[in-house]
């Protein structure tokens, strides 16, 4: 998969737009004047040192965190205090967490079907058929009746991806999806994500997996201290970093 191929999948339709977004935790200014446009089919990697606000940035996009200034527009809907807007945005965005956050009291299948049945009002049979399709896609269909606690970390994260896909989102957010995994399990999760990228899903991914970034990303964003410092296509970004802070960061992780 080359970068040229990847770019063919993108179009001009803007899926997520951030305009001058600012956010504070108490007095701590965590996001500073963030401007970002994500078009359909784009795959964006966000990296940066710990505490730079990269997780906060993507968590603002589905209102897990509230921003205080600026506009966030997702699929044409402006995120504000209106609960209906938040609901609609959340139906359009899937999210995968560092700690998987599967529901431990429900089986893999129930984890996948719960939201389709109770949020989208799908009939149970239909929801189960769709869930099975996605579980097969992440190669974990044989574990459908098990509980999350009986699966390995990599398997759990693949279930979490399938659970998000069951809601048929047009954007996927990944918040350090491989950081809590043992090294030998990282690849199985990344493979699923590469597949997803090839199918043209719009993805925003906070990760330090630079191999993954080079394979699938259209753009890499580097954040530090709440700001987007540098933004470039992956090969340029890694081979020819512009700012000193980016150079320092890359020298530490590579």
């Amino acid at each position, binding site marked *: 998969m080359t970068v040229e191929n990847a770019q063919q999948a993108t179009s001009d339709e803007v899926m997520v737009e951030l305009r001058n977004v600012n956010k504070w935790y108490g007095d701590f200014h965590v996001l500073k004047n963030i401007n970002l446009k994500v078009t359909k089919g784009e795959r964006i990697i966000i990296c940066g040192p710990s505490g730079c606000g990269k997780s906060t940035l993507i968590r603002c996009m589905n209102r897990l965190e509230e921003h205080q200034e600026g506009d966030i527009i997702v699929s044409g809907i402006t995120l504000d205090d209106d609960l209906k807007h938040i609901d609609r945005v959340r139906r359009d965005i899937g999210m995968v*967490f560092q700690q998987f*956050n599967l*529901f431990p*009291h429900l089986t893999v299948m129930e984890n996948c079907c*719960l*939201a389709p049945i*109770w*949020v989208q009002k799908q009939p149970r049979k239909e929801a189960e058929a769709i869930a099975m399709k996605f579980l097969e896609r992440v190669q974990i269909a044989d574990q459908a009746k098990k509980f999350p*606690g009986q699966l390995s970390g990599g398997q759990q994260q693949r279930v979490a991806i399938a659970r*998000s896909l069951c809601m048929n989102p047009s954007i996927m957010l990944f918040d350090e999806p491989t950081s809590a995994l043992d090294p030998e399990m990282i690849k199985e999760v990344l493979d699923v994500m590469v597949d997803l990228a090839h199918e043209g899903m719009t993805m925003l991914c906070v990760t330090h997996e630079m191999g993954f970034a080079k394979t699938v990303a259209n753009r890499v964003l580097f954040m530090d201290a709440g700001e987007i410092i540098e933004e470039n296509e992956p090969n340029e970004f890694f081979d020819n970093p512009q700012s000193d802070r980016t150079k320092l960061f890359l020298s530490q992780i590579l």
Partner: protein
Amino acid sequence: MTVHITTPTPDKAPPASSVGAVGWLRKNLFSSIPNSIFTILGLLLIYNLVPPAINWAFFTADWVGSTKGDCTSEGACWVFVIVRIRQFLFGFYPPSEYWRVITAFSLVGVLVAWLLIERTPKKGVVAAFTVFCYPIIAYFLFYGGSFGLPVVETHKWGGLMLTLILATIGMFCALPIGIILALGRRSSMPIAKSMSVVFIEFWRGVPLITVLFMSSVMLPIFMPETWQFDKLLRALIGIVFFQSAYMAEVVRGGLQAIPRGQYEAAEALGLSYWKTMFFIILPQALKLVIPGIVNTFIALFKDTTLVLIIGLFDLLAVVQAAFADPKWLGFSVEGYVFVASVYWVSCFSMSRYSQHLEKKLHTGHAR
């Protein structure tokens, strides 16, 4: 550089002294000299206490007869309990209407067993019937006044029947109210939050005896004549409020143990607050606090004996009243042992069932 290639070491059986009965005894009872001394002392104590107690209660006890004179042996005089068993079970409920009480309790017994035993069909229908229809049926059976059943005033209710009514209604109402209060206390809405806090702190801060006194003595003074309602009902409301405040704090403990990520995952999937609570948070939180819930249930069950101070004759009060019978003076030990064993059997069953439930609901994620 050399490369070592070894075949895997085969598994060996553990040393004989660490397994089997001898291994167990050595490890748990005779691991050191002080432990051996304590083991021997403990065995002596058991030998000196348990056989005499069993002798008193069973082998040298009197079981048949109708008067005090029939108790001739040295052991317990269970004749006292057997002669008065109807009163102990039903209080002053008219004997011709006993069948109504038995029917009501048998029905709830069948319903509860249906719900608790695994692999029974149509649990949803049975649960709905138990929650919505059974209370109405039970009301007409116990109180009467309809379908040709004569009215039995609540002041005639008593004994084990009253204890069970108070405890069952108390449990069935205290849990849902407690859950609502716990959610309210953790809510971000200021009015819901402060109302829950005030309710919980008020009811948890006053002794149950005061609550019962207030409900039976003070309330009738303050309330207009036309608003007066049954004393048993007033006591019941007091017990439910009191216990739901305790329950709320138990449930809140469970809610706080659920990681933030569970809420976030549910939110990210677009689940609303109530759906998140109902499907994700409460099932996990309640499972975590089963020991606390059962603890509160057991405390509630035993606390119902306090209604005797407002003149309701529960099991303990009825048995105590029987001590005053001049024909049966001097049998309080038998009476108390009887009451204690009824309570113990009930509470121990709850405890066992809760342990079974914990095992059943364990889905392998606890560490």
